[in-house]
């Protein structure tokens, strides 16, 4: 219980900071939601309610905006989010094969989160690094020139890291 309260307080502190930076008008809404999401992984109903209160907006409005943008998630996501570019330049460079490898390797179809809440696999639109396609983004890092082997290696590396961190 205590940790939950601490987390809540930290969330409010962060919100204060963001309001300070972007202002408390509706024009700041998208930026505040995005930065909050960056910090927390996804936004809960409580988070949205807090933002609504601070910016003096209806909760429905805040939810409408939050659910529109791809960098803001209103559903829980896994520890790592894999965003794979599904657009034509990456597709021509061999993206279809990588798509299958990702689904196999993580064991979930696109748009879903694994049972152990470790991975969320999402398609994304262009990441602006088409010259090194196919491209995927794991959390904040972009990986290009993907081959099936490279994908397996990258995912294994994250798994290894997580194990190391837990031990």
């Amino acid at each position, binding site marked *: 219980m205590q940790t939950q309260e601490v987390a809540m307080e930290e969330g409010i502190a962060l919100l204060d900071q963001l309001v300070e930076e972007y202002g408390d008008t509706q*024009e700041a809404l998208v*930026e505040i*939601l995005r930065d909050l999401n960056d910090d927390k992984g996804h936004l809960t109903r409580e988070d949205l309610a807090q933002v609504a209160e601070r910016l003096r907006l209806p909760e429905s409005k805040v939810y409408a905006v939050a659910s529109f943008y791809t960098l803001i998630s209103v559903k829980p996501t896994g520890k790592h989010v894999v965003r794979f570019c599904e*657009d034509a330049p990456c597709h*021509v460079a061999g993206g279809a094969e990588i798509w299958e490898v990702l689904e196999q390797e993580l064991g979930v179809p696109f748009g879903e989160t694994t049972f152990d809440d470790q991975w969320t696999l999402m398609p994304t639109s262009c990441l*602006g690094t*088409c*010259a090194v396609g196919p491209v995927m983004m794991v959390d904040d890092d*972009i990986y*290009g020139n993907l081959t099936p082997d490279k994908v397996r290696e990258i995912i294994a590396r994250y798994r290894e890291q997580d194990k190391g961190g837990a031990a």
Partner: protein
Amino acid sequence: MIRSRVLISGDLMSLHRGAEETKLAIEAELSYYGLTDEVEVSYTGQIDRSDLLPAVVVYPEGVVYGPVTPEDGAFIVEEHLYKGRVVERLKAPVDILTSQTARVIEQKGTTYAQKRVVLRRAGDIDPDSIEDYIINDGYFALGKALSEMTPAEVLQEVKASKLQGRGGAGFPTGLKWSFVVSQPEEPKYVVCNADESEPGTFKDRLILEGDPHAVLEGMALAGYAVGASEGWIYIRGEYKMAKEKLQRAIRQAEEMNLLGDNIMETDFSFHIHVHAGAGAYICGEETALLESMEGNRGVPRIRPPYPTVSGFRGQPTVVNNVETLANVPPIILNGASWFRSIGTENSPGTKVYTMLGDVNVTGLVETPMGTTLREIIEIYGGGMKDGKTFKCAQTGGSAGTIIPADLLDVPMDFASMGSHNAGLGSGALLVCDENTCVVDLAYVLVRFFKTESCGKCTPCRVGTAQMLEALDRLRKGYAKQSDLERLEEIAEYAREASFCGLGQAAPVPILSGLCHFREEFEAHICGECPAGVCPTAPKPACETPVAEEKCAPVPWRPDTEYPLDDPSQIEEAR
């Protein structure tokens, strides 16, 4: 005392290929030889050849090395900076690069070589240093405008240059500005559209990362011309590095009184803010962008009123693309007639392209307007990969057109491409070889639009889903002749009836694909994929109908068509 400068390409692609390790290795080696006080090391933007990344440029000699591994970097320090010998082995090929800077000569035989206006500094300077920008003629145009020109003269110069919007629509920039000037309402705003999310396009990111001050200066000039004192840069949420570079650049310019209040001690004040998005393709549409800036869902507004009349906060607003704004300072500095001497009669200047797909060298190219696709592929793309045959190219990103080999020699500018029912769009060139299936390509493109449709209007929301379904049936070999007819019908509806440019552009790949590669679609009905890409199964006793010469023109419909009271205005602007 600094005697040498080392610049390392620090764009995403270079970083991905280990530019950071190379930089660290160079710095370590410099401190080993005790050269830290004499040699300055910094990142720069990308040089023009992506096969040479990460590249290292050593000044004052102007030697370009690339690609440079950490070991090579250390070796360059020992040989070049310590012993003073150029490392020939690691030098970039000189037939491509002139000896002095990482540039190609302007004329090469009978064809043009890369001509840089927008990217003239990217890759030569440290984008984090305002001094570097100023030394290379930076903020001179703003100084000239503020001291020698009235706002009306600046506007006139841009009009006379015939600069067209580089975001895709090609609308005359000067004309757009003059719409804002003619509005009585105050205040007015300048918005830079940096929500570059067109698949296959990343020119704006490299301009912002390589030369952020050029965009700031262009915005200030736009502000001066139209009478605005505030500007916003709407940058897509994914471009974190570019955002940081912009924010740093704004701070530096404000410190030197090149932005902010009373710029250069004149009465002109101009403030620039950065507003980052949160991931939505539709926000590149200018009215959706404005909605997003105001804290709403990014759905497009009805037009008219156009943003030039009622834009950000309901005020007259200029919305220009990054590349367009980066063109403004050189126009003001060198004059409109200089600008018109580059490119073609109707579309002067240069265009920055991003070349992708089955060519040997992918990456960024800036050439004069009017360069043909064949020239771009042969000269800058290093030809087709593995010597394969060119089949088609998709120009202008997902919203662009699929063009066949017989259009390879069309001079690429807005007007000539338009007359062949093809679009120049954002400048993405996706080159495909014989192993590409046009149906599969159209499927992927429409899938993108279905995902990105904002859902506001039915023709786009439902139309994209139905088109995707029909294409999927074709791909899998279930489709009948009637499916193809239906697909064409829905595509026409979506193009005619959609609310904004997204829905109007979504059927264009299908229509242009059908126009040039109809027999390939027909073959899929018989369960045959000529390129062998689709998971089809041949049907017994199937005959394809004789393909009639049915090629519906695909007019390129720019999504930023402003209304003109008098059509002669546009003639005048051209």
